[in-house]
Structure formats: C-alpha cells, structure tokens
C-alpha cells in the first residue's frame, strides 16, 4: 500500500538504472532464450519502431527534471527524488503538465516528447466564435484532442457538445489535483461522438471549494462519475440528484485522491472508530 513507501524510505530508482537500456529480457531460463536473443539488451538500435521518438531514451532522466511538480509538495506520498533540483516554478505552468503553455515557455528546448499542437477544426472555430476567450485552449496531444475552457462556461460548452456537436457519449468524468496551483483541480470530461468517431477531452480548472454545475441532465452516466469525483476529490456538483460518497464508507473523512491526503492516519482512525481494532497495517 502507498503508505509503505514512506515507512521503508525506498531508494529512488534513478541511480541504479542504466540510462536508456531498454527492458528486454526473456524468461531467463529455458523458453525465453529465443526472445532474449532477438532483443538483447545491448543491441537497442535496430529494433526501434518507427514511431518511437529518436534519442528520447537518452534524455529522459534529465528531461524529467524540468517538470517535477510534486517534488516540492511535501505531502505527496511519492518517494522524493533527491537528486533533482526543482525548477523554480514560473507562474503556474510547471504544475500544469497538460497545459500547452508550459511547453512553449519551457527553458529546456529539448525534443523530449511530442508537444501539444493547436487543434484546428470547425468545431473549435464555432466554439471560439461564440465563447471567445472562454475557450482557453484547443490542442491535440499525441493525436488526442482537448479543449481547456473556463469553469464558468463549461456547462454551456458541454451542453453544446452534446446537443449541437453530437458528442452523445460521456466516457468519463474525472479530476486531477495540483495542490501548488491556485486553481487546484482540473476537471476532465472525456467525450465521444459516435457520429464523428472522435474523442474530445474538455477540461476546466477550478479552485478548491468552487462548485461546478452537474452534467447529469446532459448525460445520465455522469451521476456515478460525478459522485466518484466528489468521493475522491471533494468537488461538489450543483444540482446533482444524489451527491454522496460512492466507493468509500459514508462516514469517511477527507478525499483520498487529493495529493495532500494523509493515508495512514485516516486509515487508522477509521478502522479504530468503526471496527474497534487497531489498524492491521
């Protein structure tokens, strides 16, 4: 469980890993022999598939330094990577990995991965013409399209997507927590259109405590998905028919998928109160 990472103080994997060596090993004994012959660790170059980014593997460790949003977050439960100096955050961008701006403003101009490209489509122009700057960004990343919109108009945009643009299937609703940012939460609506066979992610950013309007009226499926977001992040949705915890017990305190959630204490307290025993951990 996650809390063990804190207890045992694990060593960061970086120092011991030979940079750039691809993972390729057979079973070792016996039947994997053929495999290991074909993809031996040393001969890496011949097997690079055409789509893989050249030289990416060599740069990965250093490139990672540029954006380490959680490194400075003490409450996060990840094993800290001591070797890395956290890049001084300029504004809010390093903490927003999904946003397009950081990529442009990044001081390290290494080709460390694909960059979001502007998404030009009629849909975007239509939306932009109506909502203007409310549509903050429309990009594609790795061929996946997304819109970043202002939280005040997200409901209208979603409604429009459903009604006019035929995005009739709401795949998922989820959130991402960036504790360092002012608008702490990214809410992500993943939409799909059977008509266009196309996926679009609609994202918006809200502050902690800010409320969003529910989309249950647009897609029924949002009911449980929003409940789960509420359960895990504590984001409340106005007008939701039955906003209560879904996966966790009703009396649970805190919102576990927030980065600043102390897992161990919560667990022990809940177990102690509800089961009357000390935590098994």
């Amino acid at each position, binding site marked *: 469980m996650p809390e063990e990472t804190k207890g045992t103080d694990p060593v960061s994997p970086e120092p011991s890993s030979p940079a750039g060596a691809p993972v390729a090993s057979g079973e070792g004994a016996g039947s994997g022999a053929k495999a290991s012959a*074909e993809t031996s660790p040393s001969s890496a*170059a011949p097997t*690079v598939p*055409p789509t893989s980014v050249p030289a990416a*593997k060599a740069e990965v460790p250093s490139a990672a330094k540029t954006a380490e949003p959680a490194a400075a977050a003490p409450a996060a439960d990840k094993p800290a990577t001591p070797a890395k100096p956290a890049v001084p955050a300029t504004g809010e961008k390093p903490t927003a990995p999904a946003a397009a701006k950081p990529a442009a403003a990044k001081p390290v101009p290494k080709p460390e991965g694909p960059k979001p490209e502007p998404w030009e489509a009629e849909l975007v122009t239509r939306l932009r013409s109506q909502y203007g700057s409310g549509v903050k960004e429309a990009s594609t990343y790795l061929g996946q399209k997304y819109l970043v919109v202002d939280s005040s108009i997200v409901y209208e945009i979603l409604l429009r997507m459903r009604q006019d643009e035929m995005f009739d299937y709401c795949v998922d609703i989820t959130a991402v*927590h960036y504790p360092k940012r002012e608008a702490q939460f990214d809410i992500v609506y993943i939409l799909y259109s059977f008509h266009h066979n196309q996926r679009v992610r609609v994202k918006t950013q809200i502050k902690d405590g800010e409320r969003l309007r529910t989309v249950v009226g647009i897609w029924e499926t949002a009911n449980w998905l929003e409940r789960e977001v509420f359960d895990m992040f504590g984001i409340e949705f106005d007008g939701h028919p039955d906003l209560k915890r879904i*996966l966790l017990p009703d009396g649970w305190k805190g919102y576990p998928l927030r980065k600043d959630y102390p897992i161990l204490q919560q667990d022990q307290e809940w177990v102690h109160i509800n089961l009357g025993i000390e935590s098994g951990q």
Partner: protein
Amino acid sequence: MSERTDYLDLDTKDETFLDATELVLNMGPQHPSTHGVLRVILKLDGEKVLGTECVIGYLHRGVEKIAENRTYAMFNPYVDRMDYVAAVSNGLGYCEAVEKLLSVEAPPRAQYIRVILTELCRIASHQVWLGTHALDIGAITPLFYCFRDREEVLKIFEKYCGARLTTHAFRIGGCIYEAYEGFEQDCKKFCDAFLPKLDEYEELLTTNRIWVERTKGVGILNPEDCIALGVTGPVLRASGVKWDLRKAQPYESYKDFDFMIPTGLHGDTYDRYLVRIEEMRQAARIIRQAVDGLPQGPIMAMVPKVIKPPVGEVYHSIEAPKGELGYFIVSDASTQPYRIRVRPPSFVNLQALDKMVRGLLVADVVAVIGTLDIVLGEVDR
C-alpha cells in the same frame, strides 16, 4: 382513533414503509448472485421491483491512489486485479496507454501475441459470465462446462506467462515472454475444441423454453438509454448499436483481422446472451487468423528501462470483454504517474441496473445483474 398514536410511538417506522405493501429487501453484499460484494437495496411491491439502489465500494482498494505511488512498470501487475476474470485485457489497456504516452509502439509480433491472448481472455471472461449467468437463472450445469473449457485458456496463459488468473502478461513496449514452443498449435487446438463445446452450451440454453422465457424481454435497454448511460460493450451492442472499439478505433493489430461485430435487436437479456456467444465465436476466428499470420521479429519495442514519459496526458481505451476500458494517465515526467484514472466498464454499466430492473421481478434482478457481467473488483477498484 386515539389508539393509533400509541403504536406509532412504539414503532419507529421507516419512511419507505409508508406504503404498507412496499418491502425493502437488502440483497447482498453477501448474496449468492451478486457476483461478489455488491449490495443492492431493492424496494419491492410484493415481488415487483419499484426501485433499486446500489451500494458499492466493499472491494475498494484505491487502485488509482496506489498508481500514484508506483512506477509505471510497478503498477502493471495491479491492473490485473481490477477485472480479475479478464486480467489480460486490463494489462493490454494499461500498457498501450503508457506506450502512447511514450510514443512507442509494440512490434508486430508482440501485437499479434497480444491480440491472441486478449481474445483468449475475452473467451475466458465470457465463459465465466455464461457460467455464472446461467447459474443465476438456475441452470447449474453450464457453469461446469464453461469452467472446463476456460481451464484450457488458463493453461495457455500459464504456459505463456506463468500465471493463470492475474497474468501480468504484457509489459510496456511489448511482451516480455516469447511465444512458447507449441503456442500456435495450442491456440488452434483450443479453437477447434471450443467451438463444438459452444454449440453444446447453446443446446442447453439457447432454445430452452425456460431460458428464453427468463431472458426475453427482461432488462431491456434501448440504444438511447445505453448511450445516455454510457453503457458499452456487449450490452450496448445487444441494443443494436454496432460499436466496437476494435473496429471504431482499431488498436494493436485488429485492423489486420476479419471479424464481425455481432449486434442484437431488442437489447434484452436474451440478445445480450446471443451477442456474447457470437463474440466468443468471433474471438476464436480472430485467434485463428492471428495465429496463422503470426509474424516473426522482436517482441519488445525500445523503451527505456526507467520509464519517464514526457509531461502530458493521454486517454486510451480498449474494448475489454465488458466494454470500454479506458486509462487516463497524467504524467509529470517523473517515474511515477501523476494521476491514473481508470474508466471501468463494469462501474459505468452497473449504473444502468436501476433503469433495467424497474417494474421487473426479484428473479429478474438476478438475471439482469448477471447479464451486465460486472466484476466487483473493477467496479470498486
């Protein structure tokens, strides 16, 4: 009358009991046919269901939180534990999502092996579904036949990757295990042996009047409801929507294969049954094609030993046996995912239960839960 107030004080009445003929039945979490630890609170009028409420989360393990504390490779075994009857599919979806994030693609041979195993896994998952669904409706024997044949699939899994249930078969960037000696023959032999067995299941069930009566017209979901509720997989296809991610947005090497997407007409339990049976046939067809066309070559793409995807986020989904299984991964260029969101088909499909069972009888609730083919490990994660 004045006496009435006396017993009202004594009797702390539940609001739901206000109508005298209404009964609240608590089905589960320990009930033989809730497929795990699902708890359904049924509001009944006699045996007629007026409404349901699902209480889930008994199996919640915080997979998404675990992911934030594991490296990408370390998290791979955990996804097997979500939908544990279709572990291979889970692994495939996860590996593909991370590969997408890394802009890597598995080599063709790996893709073929992945397809073979995933389709085998689809057969295995559908067999578990068929067995338990038939058991819910009262036919106890198909369960054993299904598990007998599933055993052959598990044997192939065990031979291939050393584990039967939670396989951990794929790695990010391809497969780690080369196909063992006789893999192709095993798969073909399985397909040859399996299809006649499938006909046998059908003899037991498809035309059986009790089965037909129990399933026809039960738990109808029309296409509009399906889409509004985000229901995917065989349930969606049974209502007549011909949508399968393997065709709609082909991943791996599915575009190389010739197969059909079975669809139903009425969206009732019987159609879902037929769709899944036909899906098993199509899966066997895919396996045969894949085995025949299994290319030579490497099975692992070039991926760094320490996986550090660039900053970015990606949503990738595959057609798992139960529906659209999606992974939304946010990377912050560290070795650990910043956030992984799993879009579980069972969780979303389960939401349709209430709509499906209203006005039906208690026995139909069991049939409908069975036909939704939920796995609580995936619902609760």
